[in-house]
């Protein structure tokens, strides 16, 4: 560590020792520490080779490699009043020069004159920097600690300092020097503690450079990378011994990495009967609840083994293995008890309980929600006219999508709600298609996760999502900032993703109009339909924007199509327009066309020209207006067919072709002439052009 470092460059270290900080807080905290340190060190002119940060469940560590002993020296110039004010007519220093000198802690005779483009000014030259860097660290370190942000903080001592968990120790060193400061009632020192399993013994660290080694000798691996390597090795050698594969997904690895200071694997088995449980349940218990790695054979099937990770010591392995096994089996046993009980209940009887579960006040029960989903699926099916759709299965599946809500297992393992329905449907021997539709009902579960596959499951999933959004909006539930208790954003996002992936083209407004009628009367009475539908379209559009942006479209392209969507309610069609716009944009004439469109729109702003106003060709005077209008008419006659066939790219390409005549018009024709008749006629030409453009997109949104 200390190799070839000049004596004036030593490492600096801050260790914040905390009572078990949650694993999920650590990565962000490390990143923040580094950033705040880098900003502040550069502000104060402290040079160093590199900065690193590390974390375990009980320490956050900032490490500055090869830090200069002194802050950087710099000359700074303070400028004062005009040079003319140095002395008065009698050659005496003026009050102004005295004042300026005093403010700079010097005397007037030390003042200099500098020349600037604005004239000559009095100035003082001062040297700054060259201070011991460790003195500055005594300010930076507590600053860093107090600036860290966490998902949740607490207070524990009388200063009421806020942090993720109580701070129980601070170590701050520069080389062998202690950086002295105090925070939250704790004084920085050169002491830390070793492994918890060995009683957290107090130890003294002689120099910053010896920190990692000192702790490593006590079986504490502070460096995340190194600890991760050990963890991976523990898991892979356990897998090898079993001749099986451990499922080491990234999240679980990360969580385990931050739950221990020295990873030691504990391998054990459990009774095979528990593998009859649904695989999601096995994963929930093993991974989410107990943080165990599951084990698979070469066919990807679960095997009755677990790999647990304990902290730092391999004494009493049998105790720990037996303990892990007992807890795992007890939880499985509990789950199996409820699962078997649920399987013995006839599906319709279980589903009947939905009549007692309120969806939301005013919106009836979950049974009522199922009925609406069935109706909504029917409306979708009618509007989309999908030839191969198995309607019977679609409707039947919609009745059972919530059947697990009333199951005993879901009462105990609420995370499995939406997953178990499939197993109960399968147990009731419903058809494969129905089971699959039930299984995929909640999909997509996140922004990037899988979508329902078949038409049947897509329809039912859409119906469920739009019912939640429509009915929630109808009873006045609003999504604000971070408050979205009913997950409406997720529903709207899923809705948009399915529509786009399945290329379902339909007018959402027409759908909502029909769907609205199925809401309870008291809810219907309270709503202004047009306003409600507008709000829902706006909400879905906002989510869709994120999907479009994710596909690589620019925000102005997306916004150019918004008014079209709000008008047509057709998200799929809107997507095609965005795509065409994106392609056409590469045409060199496109930007100036967009600019001309913006200009045309601006000209019309103060006028009352209507879409139906047609220019009187007899009033044309200039060749340029004749030429432009001829092109407009030609394109206009083609527009209907092209747009009907969704040939937006062709249409946009035709629009671009109009550019020369449009330029000719703007260059040669004066619109705002005195003759009102001619003026109005020319405005009508512009209006007809704007109408033509608007059929494709609102090009005024495009940033040129």
């Amino acid at each position, binding site marked *: 560590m200390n190799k070839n470092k000049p004596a004036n460059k030593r490492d600096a270290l801050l260790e914040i020792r905390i009572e078990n900080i949650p694993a999920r807080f650590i990565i962000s905290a490390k990143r923040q520490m580094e950033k705040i340190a880098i900003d502040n060190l550069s502000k104060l002119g402290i040079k160093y080779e590199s900065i690193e940060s590390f974390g375990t469940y009980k320490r956050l560590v900032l490490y500055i490699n090869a830090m200069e002993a002194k802050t950087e020296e710099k000359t700074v110039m303070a400028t004062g009043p005009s040079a003319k004010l140095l002395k008065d007519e009698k050659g005496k220093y003026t009050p102004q020069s005295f004042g300026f000198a005093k403010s700079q802690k010097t005397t007037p005779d030390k003042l200099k004159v500098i020349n600037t483009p604005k004239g000559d000014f009095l100035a003082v030259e001062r040297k700054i920097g060259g201070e011991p860097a460790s003195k500055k660290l005594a300010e930076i370190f507590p600053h860093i600690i107090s600036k860290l942000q966490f998902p949740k903080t607490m207070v524990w001592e009388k200063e009421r300092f806020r942090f993720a968990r109580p701070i129980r120790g601070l170590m701050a060193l520069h080389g062998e020097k202690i950086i002295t400061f105090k925070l939250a009632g704790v004084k920085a020192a050169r002491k830390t503690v070793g492994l918890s399993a060995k*009683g957290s013994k107090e130890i003294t660290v002689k120099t910053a450079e010896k920190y990692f080694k000192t702790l490593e000798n006590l079986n504490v691996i502070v460096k995340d990378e190194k600890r991760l390597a050990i963890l991976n090795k523990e898991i892979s050698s356990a897998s090898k011994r079993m001749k099986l594969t451990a499922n080491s997904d990234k999240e679980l690895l990360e969580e385990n990495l931050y739950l221990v200071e020295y990873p030691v694997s504990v391998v054990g088995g459990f009774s095979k009967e528990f593998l009859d449980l649904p695989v999601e349940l096995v994963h929930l218990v093993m991974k989410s609840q107990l943080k165990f790695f599951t084990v698979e054979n070469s066919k990807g099937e679960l095997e009755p083994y677990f790999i647990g990770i304990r*902290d730092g010591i391999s004494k009493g392995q049998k105790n720990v293995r037996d303990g892990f096994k007992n*807890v795992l089996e007890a939880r499985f046993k509990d789950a199996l008890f409820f699962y078997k009980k649920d399987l013995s209940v006839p599906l319709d009887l279980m589903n009947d309980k939905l009549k007692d579960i309120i969806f939301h006040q005013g919106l009836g029960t979950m049974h009522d929600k199922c009925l609406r989903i069935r109706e909504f699926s029917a409306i979708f099916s009618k509007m989309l006219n999908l030839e191969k759709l198995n309607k019977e299965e679609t409707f039947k599946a919609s009745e059972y999508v919530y059947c697990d809500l009333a199951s005993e297992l879901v009462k105990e393992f609420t995370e499995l709600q939406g997953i178990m329905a499939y197993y109960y449907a399968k147990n009731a021997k419903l058809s494969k298609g129905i089971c699959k539709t039930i299984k995929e009902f909640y999909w997509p579960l996140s922004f990037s996760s899988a979508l329902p596959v078949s038409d049947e499951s897509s329809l039912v999933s859409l119906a469920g999502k739009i019912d939640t959004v429509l009915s929630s909006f109808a009873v006045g539930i609003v999504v604000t900032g971070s408050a979205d208790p009913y997950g409406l954003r997720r529903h709207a996002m899923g809705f948009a993703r399915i529509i786009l992936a399945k290329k379902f083209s339909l007018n959402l407004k027409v759908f909502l109009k029909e769907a609205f009628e199925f809401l309870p009367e008291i809810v219907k009475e309270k709503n202004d339909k047009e306003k409600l539908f507008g709000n829902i379209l706006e909400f879905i559009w906002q989510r869709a924007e994120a999907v479009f942006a994710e596909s690589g479209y620019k925000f102005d392209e997306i916004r150019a199509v918004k008014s079209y969507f709000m008008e047509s309610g057709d998200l799929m069609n809107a997507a095609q327009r965005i795509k065409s716009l994106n392609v056409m944009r590469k045409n060199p004439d496109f930007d100036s066309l967009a600019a001309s469109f913006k200009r045309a729109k601006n000209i019309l702003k103060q006028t009352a020209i209507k879409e139906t106003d047609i220019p009187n060709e007899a009033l044309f005077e200039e060749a340029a207006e004749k030429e432009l209008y001829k092109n407009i008419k030609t394109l206009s006659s083609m527009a209907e067919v092209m747009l009907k066939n969704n040939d937006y790219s062709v249409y946009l390409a035709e629009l671009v072709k109009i550019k020369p005549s449009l330029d000719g018009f703007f260059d040669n024709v004066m619109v705002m002439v005195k003759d009102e008749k001619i003026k109005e006629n020319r405005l009508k030409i512009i209006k007809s052009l704007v109408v033509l453009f608007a059929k494709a997109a609102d090009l005024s949104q495009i940033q040129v």
Partner: protein
Amino acid sequence: MNLQDIILQLDHYWAKQGCAIVQPYDLEKGAGTFNPATFFGVLTPRPMKAAYVEPSRRPSDGRYGDNPNRLSRFHQYQVVIKPPMKDIQQIYLNSLKVMGINHSEHDIRWIEDDWESPTLGASGVGWEVWLDAMEITQFTYFQQMASFELNPISVEITYGLERLAMFSQKKKNIFDIKWNDDVTYGEMFKKREEQFSYYNFEAADIGKLKRDFTENEKQAHDLASRKYYIPAYDLAMKCSHAFNVLDARGAISVSERVSLIKRIRDLSKICASAYVKDNHHE
């Protein structure tokens, strides 16, 4: 170690740490936190150290004595300390040693688990402590009680005594735990579990419980408004228990649940307010 010895060892250990060994409070409650020693105790600036066993009732958790891991009535060992010592985590870990649990031979982990009681208007930040993956303790720094921001902060350490005994005696069934060398847990409490499961799930008189709730609530408000916050709080605890039984009985709708919880929280709040006012000048 039998369960009775675990209690004796813990009493002895925490008494040495300066805790007053308080006795269980003689009313039904869902958790040791409801004991007035904790509820009122954490509200004032005066330092406090107390420890006690608290039989706790969770009617919905009953399983007629059929399930080897579930009880409708169990025993918590609760420690409350204000302000917490700086090495309170290690003091807690040392308490496991007196039960014969040596940290170096077991895996002990602290899993994030913040605590909240909507009926008490209380919340805290802390952990579940896992001993070889078995949850044996809830360790919480209270932040709020009865909607009051606490200052100073108290730490609450709650041991699950049955869990510890199962672990120590290597039993897989709660009812096989030895209470002392002669009597098992099952002999003492299995019949109780059967009968109370029947009462809580099937027989409890819903109308009476609802009337009790309303009448107790009414009198609690009246008493607290006249500064008799201690009996008022007893009545609030009775409301809380009535709510728990009604819940197990399946007699509470979703919307009712929200409003009943709020009514209990309001009672906690007025009792706490009256107590804080009364102790203002100490």
